């Protein structure tokens, strides 16, 4: 229950299945395309995603703070 209140929109599983089906529909096999990435690109993308994730967490925290006041 706590999981669903944290993600009011959709569970991670649903999003996972959705991404998988969109890839499938367009004939994309993750096992194949992930070889297109160089180690450096992978590192760069990883940094970008981690950074955005942190920003979202900060945003949610701020939102909860203002709600609690």
């Amino acid at each position, binding site marked *: 229950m706590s999981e669903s209140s944290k993600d*009011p929109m959709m569970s*991670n599983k649903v999003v996972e299945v959705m991404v998988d089906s969109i890839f499938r529909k367009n004939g994309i096999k993750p096992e194949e*395309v992930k070889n297109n990435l160089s180690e450096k690109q992978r590192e760069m993308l990883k940094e970008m995603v981690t950074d*955005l994730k942190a920003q979202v967490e900060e945003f949610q925290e701020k939102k909860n703070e203002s709600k609690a*006041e």
Partner: protein
Amino acid sequence: MMHKKEWRALDYCDDERNNQAEVEEAAKQKNITKQSSEEWIIIKDSEGVTVTTTDTQAAISLQVGIEVAIAVVLSITLADSDKAKAVFQDLEQVMKTKQSNRQKTIVEKSKNVNITTTDIDIAINIQLLIQLLLAIVVSLDIL
């Protein structure tokens, strides 16, 4: 028959709180002008009003940032740009690009009111977008 005179915040100056109210009002103005045009908070003829809102502009730029990140991940990973476009289009269907809600809050002839507004639409959208991005990078073994 005379109507009962309606109460007005600015009609009387009989307590020392009025001096304080002026100061508060100055700070409040600044707070309101920071809002994007989509959120309106109108305060008329009132005193002791406290406003707390989320910064919609920051939320929108965060949202755009995640959308761009999704596009970048797809275009780098899927060497075929037509395919990347097709995938992004399919994802867009779910991302619903509605920017934010348009809410109006009007406070009139009131005393000691606390207002807290949150743009729930955009908060949920950001949550969904980051989930999408994470699901994509996990399936591509980036994260």
